[in-house]
């Protein structure tokens, strides 16, 4: 039996550089048995890197790691990870979209051990079914992961991580009850699911397992964690008992200064009363059954709902990223048939769209920041043969500085920017086209508190210049801060609408979870 006092994880003096960039420096981190430990920090502060060191993916330059009191060789081997029951939900979930749900679920099991041993398909299937029942996942095991919703993907990743923690052979041969590491698992989850996940973490911790939990949502962190550690620029600025911290203290620890926007309920940008800039009628397609909507210049309209309600498809349909099956869209005087919309026509009509999936739909990570940012402004150069090259770098450099992308270096690979800066760079890419309509999908997903504030400012600025903004998001806090008006979708139609003073997190939460009878869609939509 292991000594209960021994921490599950103790990292000492861990340092890591990528090339010449110091990402982690002298980090000491201890996770005790049975505690939920929050790991906080701005985008790029090194949280995921620390976690990938634990996963054996990166080798630290310096430092040592003890698991269950025994020091282990670095890089951490799969064998040690298995022995000490380190389980992960990685930031991007680490699922393979082209493989099936079952295969993804088994990934960690097949990763080590004798390779030629036969798979026992029936047992695998039975285990999968059990896991799915436990986590309320209703998926066929042979569905491809790319065909399931992001929520299901997150649940799958969590189920995969937790699957062995409950096994009863714990505490054998010096191994403890393990460590569950969750890197921003809540980014994709709606409220109800977050609550379930929090319950799950508690339950897991109650068994004696340590939980390391990364999130940008301070409310979640304050709710669930016992202790928190905060990274700033790769250095540990403190490990504290959560109970001893107020929200403001946390923000100050993370950002290094107080941030005002977060503290108060927002003052939404006011909409001007001209005629609508964007007018949508009878739009349908995907999960959306019917949508009428008009947005005035300077107005920011939020769309939210539960998973499957189609709220996140509204922006995709309006941009032509997803083909609509009917309806029409008017931008100023330009009438467009929704079915004919394609990204090209939408862009020509003055529409900009920030997809939620930055890595695949928003950017080409292997190309440079400059290229990614300048791709759209090329069109303005006239004709297909506008010169690029050095002019591009200068042009992009200016854009990056204007939007405070750090570092404002166009020649860097886009992938090397941290999440928040990637998002700001994407904003730069679209805002430079001077859009009339700005469509946003989860604009601050995985973005830290500081960058989040800057992005809000950018949105407000775009609205002030006459943009009609539509934002689909499941982040109610965010909607409350930026929107003049929020539509709630249920089963593909707008079931409710909040405006004016009512647009607060509390108001939205109430609306979302109110067990209200769905009223007639026409009546409730944009009157």
């Amino acid at each position, binding site marked *: 039996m292991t000594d209960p006092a021994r921490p599950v994880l103790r990292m000492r003096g861990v340092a890591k550089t990528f090339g010449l960039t110091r990402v982690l420096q002298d980090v000491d981190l201890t996770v005790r048995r049975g505690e939920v430990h929050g790991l906080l920090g701005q985008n790029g502060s090194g949280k995921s890197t620390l976690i*990938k060191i634990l*996963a*054996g*993916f990166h080798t630290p330059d310096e430092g040592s790691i003890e698991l269950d009191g025994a020091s282990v060789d670095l890089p951490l081997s*799969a064998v040690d*990870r*298995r022995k000490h029951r380190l389980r*992960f939900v*990685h930031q991007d979930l*680490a*699922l*393979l*979209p*082209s*493989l099936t749900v079952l*295969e993804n679920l*088994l*990934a*960690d*099991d*097949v*990763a*080590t*051990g*004798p*390779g*030629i*041993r*036969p*798979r026992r*398909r029936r047992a695998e299937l039975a285990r999968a079914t059990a896991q799915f029942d436990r986590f309320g996942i209703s998926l*066929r095991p*042979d*569905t*491809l992961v*790319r*065909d399931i919703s992001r929520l299901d993907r997150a649940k799958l990743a969590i189920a995969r991580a937790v699957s062995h923690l409950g096994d009863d052979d714990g505490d054998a041969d010096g191994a403890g009850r393990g460590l569950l590491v969750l890197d921003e698992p809540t980014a994709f989850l709606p409220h109800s699911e977050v609550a379930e996940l929090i319950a799950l973490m508690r339950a897991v911790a109650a068994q004696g397992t340590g939980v390391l939990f990364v999130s940008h949502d301070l409310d979640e962190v304050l709710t669930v964690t016992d202790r928190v550690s905060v990274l700033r620029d790769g250095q540990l600025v403190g490990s504290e008992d959560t109970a001893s911290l107020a929200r403001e203290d946390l923000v100050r620890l993370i950002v290094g200064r107080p941030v005002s926007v977060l503290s108060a309920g927002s003052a939404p940008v006011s909409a001007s009363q001209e005629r609508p800039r964007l007018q949508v009628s009878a739009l349908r397609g995907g999960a959306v059954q019917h949508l009428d909507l008009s947005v005035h210049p300077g107005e920011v309209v939020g769309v939210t709902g539960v998973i499957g309600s189609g709220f996140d498809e509204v922006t995709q349909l309006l941009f032509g990223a*997803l*083909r609509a099956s009917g309806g029409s869209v008017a931008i100023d005087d330009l009438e467009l048939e929704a079915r004919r919309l394609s990204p090209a026509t939408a862009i020509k009509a003055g529409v900009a769209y920030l997809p939620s999936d930055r890595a695949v739909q928003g950017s080409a990570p*292997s190309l440079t920041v400059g290229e990614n940012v300048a791709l759209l402004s090329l069109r303005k150069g006239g004709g297909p043969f506008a010169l690029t090259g050095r002019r591009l770098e200068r042009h992009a450099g200016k854009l990056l500085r204007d939007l405070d992308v750090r570092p404002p270096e166009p020649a860097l690979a886009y992938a090397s920017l941290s999440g928040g800066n990637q998002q700001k760079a994407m904003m730069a890419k679209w805002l430079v086209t001077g859009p009339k309509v700005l469509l946003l999908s989860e604009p601050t997903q995985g973005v830290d508190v500081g960058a989040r504030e800057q992005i809000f400012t950018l949105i407000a600025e775009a609205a002030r210049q006459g943009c009609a903004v539509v934002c689909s998001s499941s982040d109610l806090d965010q909607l409350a801060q930026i929107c003049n008006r929020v539509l709630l979708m249920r089963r593909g139609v707008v079931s409710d609408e909040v405006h004016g003073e009512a647009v607060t997190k509390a108001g939205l939460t109430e609306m979302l979870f109110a067990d209200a009878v769905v009223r007639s869609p026409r009546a409730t939509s944009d009157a």
Partner: protein
Amino acid sequence: MSVGTTTGHDTDAVAPTRPGARRWTSRIEAGALPAAWLVVFVVFAVLLPDTFLSTASVSNILGSQAVPLVLTLCLVLPLVCGDYDMSVASVATLTAMVIGILNVNHGWSIGAAIVAGLLAALLAGLVNGAVIVIFGVDSLIVTLGTGTVIQGLVLWISDSTTVSGISTSLVDLVIGYKLFSVPAAFYYGLALCVVLWYLLQHTALGMRMLFIGRGRDVARLSGIAVPRVRMGALVASAGLAGVAGTLYAGTTGSADPSSGTSFLLPAFAAVFLGATTVIPGRFNAWGAFIAVYFLATGITGLQLLGAESFVQQLFYGGALVIAVSLAQLARRREATSAGTTS
């Protein structure tokens, strides 16, 4: 190098469906190539009831494709892991030549010569693996390069001459012994198919390879020893190429220094064609088997019809394009509504 020739990535947009529907089209897709095979078979059986349907003809189709089949199968392993191996044909030639030289010119026993030939193949695989995995260089260009080097080595050791008179015991082992009047070589290919099928579909190792091919970083995060498995696949691929070379030497009873390379592109065509069937979208052993024999059936039918050789080429290329397009059509059918055009 980030020129990247990873084979495992999905290029297509998502094809979302309800699970039931997915099943249905997937089955059509998987069945396209076997159906085409059946059609080709029936057409020729009707056209040529006497010759095409004879035992001799069937045994010809089955027996003559052992070398192409094994070369196609050996490509499956690195391709599943996301690596190209363009050196397999050269490695096969190397093995055949080593066997020929040692057995004929140096009087080694055939067994010892085969072992030496296979060791040479494995060594080539180790070099491929080391450069690709350890240095981290793009597999396509490395294996194009090592393939050329090996080709040069073969010319060197053979003095550019054909070696004939390889022990008849090898020839007997490969095409002499027959079961149901089909030469042994066919059964070796079949056995290899079974082994690969078991490995890929029914072992943990097979799944690791699949994970590596579909996402190297994710595989590492899952704790898979990516370099070791990739290396293993490349070495195994070279080893199997050595087996192909042994069969080749046994088929012709001789080893010539230059002919082997003409197997390369047909093997690639077959392995990609095979990935449209059985388990559509994945490189798989039975798919490769079906692809090789589908093409061989058509070609043999045309030969029996007395068609000119250019007609055979038109059939070969046309069948390839049409079969793949059909499989893709079956898959796209329902995806269209999702508006996910490339």
